């Protein structure tokens, strides 16, 4: 596995109700980066080289998922930095927050079968030019855990066509679509390729003791490389 330079610092934001923040930090560490804990109430990114918005149920997700977290103080500098090219990854609830923040188009709605689903999900990586997927081979098929209750990706037809046309569908569900996502979309990126959101959990597939595979590790190692290149550029 590729180890990035140890001085790449990747922030992991903890919102009230974040659950997979420790796991995301562990994945960053295993990939060779330095995880930095960021706090939702702190409007400072402490000059990290990239940010992960982890999974969970921020604020209990009692309103629309991610709708409250999107207004957390930390999001202000984050949204600015993302527009400026900072690599940002949103996993599950993090993806929902990115959509609520309009850093990514579309929305995530309740699974079409109305139940929470947790399973090992097969995906195809369709865009390997983003900050978070450059370590994959084109059209590589991977298996990583998926677990969500509101993971159905929806957008209007024009947006979907645009995403497809621009190659911005990054991950696509293979075999059974687990949640009714339009066009089997599991993850997308912004036009610049620095912001990626996906419903499945790459941080749960970084070692074979606790995950079904190590297929998720390349997400984090890709970012280390992207961050280094970003510094060089």
């Amino acid at each position, binding site marked *: 596995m590729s180890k990035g330079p140890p001085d790449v610092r990747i922030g992991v934001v903890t919102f009230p109700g974040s659950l997979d923040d420790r796991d995301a930090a562990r994945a960053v560490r295993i990939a060779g980066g330095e995880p930095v804990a960021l706090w939702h109430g702190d409007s400072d990114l402490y000059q990290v080289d990239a940010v992960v918005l982890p999974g969970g149920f921020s604020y209990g997700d009692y309103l629309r998922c991610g709708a409250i977290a999107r207004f957390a103080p930390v999001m202000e500098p984050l949204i600015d930095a993302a527009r400026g090219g900072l690599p940002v990854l949103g996993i599950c609830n993090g993806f929902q927050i990115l959509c609520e923040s309009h850093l990514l188009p579309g929305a995530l709605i309740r699974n079409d079968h109305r139940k929470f689903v947790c399973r090992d999900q097969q995906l195809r990586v369709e865009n390997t030019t983003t900050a978070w997927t450059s370590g994959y081979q084109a059209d590589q098929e991977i298996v990583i855990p998926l677990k969500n209750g509101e993971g159905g990706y929806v957008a209007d037809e024009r947006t979907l066509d645009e995403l497809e046309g621009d190659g911005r569908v990054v991950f696509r569900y293979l075999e059974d679509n687990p949640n009714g996502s339009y066009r089997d979309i599991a993850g997308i990126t912004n036009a610049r390729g620095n912001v990626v959101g996906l419903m499945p959990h790459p941080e749960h597939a970084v070692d074979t003791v*606790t995950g079904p595979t190590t297929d998720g590790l390349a997400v984090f190692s890709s970012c280390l490389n992207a961050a280094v290149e970003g510094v060089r550029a």
Partner: protein
Amino acid sequence: MTIDTVKHAEATPDHEQPWAELGLKEDEYQRIRDILGRRPTSSELAMYSVMWSEHCSYKSSKVHLRRFGEVQESAGIGAERRAGARPDNSQETAAGKLLAGIGENAGVVDVGHGYAVTFKVESHNHPSYVEPYQGAATGVGGIVRDILAMGARPIAVMDPLRFGPLEAADTARVLPGVVAGIGGYGNCLGLPNIGGEVVFDASYAGNPLVNALCVGVMKHEDLHLAHASGIGNLVLLYGAKTGGDGIGGVSVLASETFDEEGPMKRPSVQVGDPFMEKLLIECTLEMFADGLVVGIQDLGGAGLSCATSELASAGEGGMHVVLDDVPLRDSTLSPEEILMSESQERMMAVVTPDDIDRVLEICRKWDVDATVVGEVNDSGRLTIEWRGEQVVDVPPRTVAHEGPVYERPYARPSWQDALQAAGPQELPRPSTGDEFRTTLLLLAGSPNLASKAWVTDQYDRYVLGNTVLAQPEDSGVVRIDEASGLGVAMATDANGRYTKLDPYAGAQLALAEAYRNVAMVGAQPLAVSDCLNFGSPEDPDVMWQFAEAVRGLADACRALETPVTGGNVSFYNQTGDKAILPTPVVGVLGVIEDVSRRTPSGFRTPGQAIYLLGETRDEFGGSEWAHVVHGHLGGRPPAVDLDAEKVLADLVVQASHEGMIGAAHDLSDGGLAQALVESCLRYGAGARIRIPEGVDPFVFLFSESQARAIVAVPESEEERFADICAARGLPYQRIGVVDDGGDGAPTLDVEGIFSVPLDELREAHERTLPARFEA
């Protein structure tokens, strides 16, 4: 509006009180008067009535549960025990020492490397029938707070569940609600759900069993017991505000004191807020980490009544509480209702005055409301004031620990002999290859043996990133230390049919199966928590089942050196006068030194030899086959052989640790046939099985003889493996090989008898629950 103050109670000794409506017996009410030397105030009556209830006081079970304490004394506390395949050069203390046992919120077991684990299983049966989603959800919340109150970080949950028949109309209401509630709460709280059971039986229709188990981990020095020590220390209530949920019976008091403006009817089932619970966990753990907590107690059943009286009676002094300071969700609540409210997601901590600012700051950081509601003093009394007047003045131990104790009459039921006499010997058995094949498919798809993925896929098993094994594995395994790979394994089991046939043996078989399941993954079983679900203790038949089950379990715990560290009794599980099958759910905790060496249950590598370990006898009493095929329950359950269980467990743990086996799966319901089905389907590898010469294929495939397992052994290890089996005197038979089917589709093939493609097997095994609940 009158407040029934202590003064008022003294002045009106003849005032009629609704003690009977609150569930107290006349002599119990008289005892309260004797303790206090006057009649109780309505607030005191509320506290005593709920704390002296069966649920809180264990008044019917206490005399029997003492047996578990005796096991602790003989095998548990202070005794250092071996931890299986621990390397000889280990410098840590041996695991298995009990650091806290019965009497605390949950038992605490030393697992070595400075870590301790606490775990407990509890019932939430009745609320889950009334309101499946919230009943099950708050069951998870309650057990998690229990674990938190020991100073531990909760790391995993599991849920043993029992429902009426799969096809019963009401099961379609209860099961999906319960499962969604467990998932909805646990997933949002962020605890992996790593196992449990889903069992169907007609006796649970109208009285489902929803048990919830939580495991937590801590460093030894972080053990926190419920103490209110230190005069002048402050009593802090934090978490959710107190509302009118779950006050149930106490409304009779409210209507007495507040005739007009009193609160209206309220739901008796509480509503859970997992987000608040998550904040409560993080906030509490941060207080622990900074050493700011003198004593702590969760608020569950009986709410503030329980927390204040338990904290006060565990400390050395007394406690004074100002009820007006309790933050309320509903300002019309009476003092009795505030004391009884079972609003969820609340905790109570005792903190020194020096630390209180720091504690409040941590609460603010996590957006958790926190209020000082009282103070520890040297009065020896628990006093509670409301609007400037004393409404409670009691010796706290009399509320929390000195409730009534009953020696309920019990007797072997008149029908027991007839039940045991009506054995399965005469039931027609399959005899042709086709019949065996049909029986195997029928059993594999029967409700109790079918895949439970429809249920468990609704639970997050990955969160926290330490789950090593989860359902459908024999036990759940969670890593607790990343550096060393130290982990714990947990399994729960119970067989109500076995227990009905013979409660003493049935409880032992529940322990034996959970013990075996823990060993299968390569973990050394260490300790037990139980949830004893029975009918009415006022029925001598039921009381006999209970007494026998406790006696059996205690004896087996002693034999297997796995002390009961704590648990829960749930009585009155019945519909009308028809009790549920006696269901002692037994949870076994084990330790595994290096989780990367865990052994999964599924066959994966073609060419590995399949060995059957243990002795197979003609045992079908209470079996799944008799139940599914003939609707029959009678005879004796399979024989208990705890020595054999120990030999089997020790061997599998050793073989797993030394890398001799690629898979291990215990034999239980459905026998060898079902174990093969599950091991084949896990990773989609087939098997070729040869029935040994002169063996009855039916007994070989479907008997439920205990102390048995199948293992897959790589060719290179076969000789060594056979040697250690022989050396330990464990019967072993090479019965086949793992086979991926070559170019063809993988099959489960019993040579010369029948063959089933895995696709067909999978359809039978996995369609049952979705077909029922997705319709």
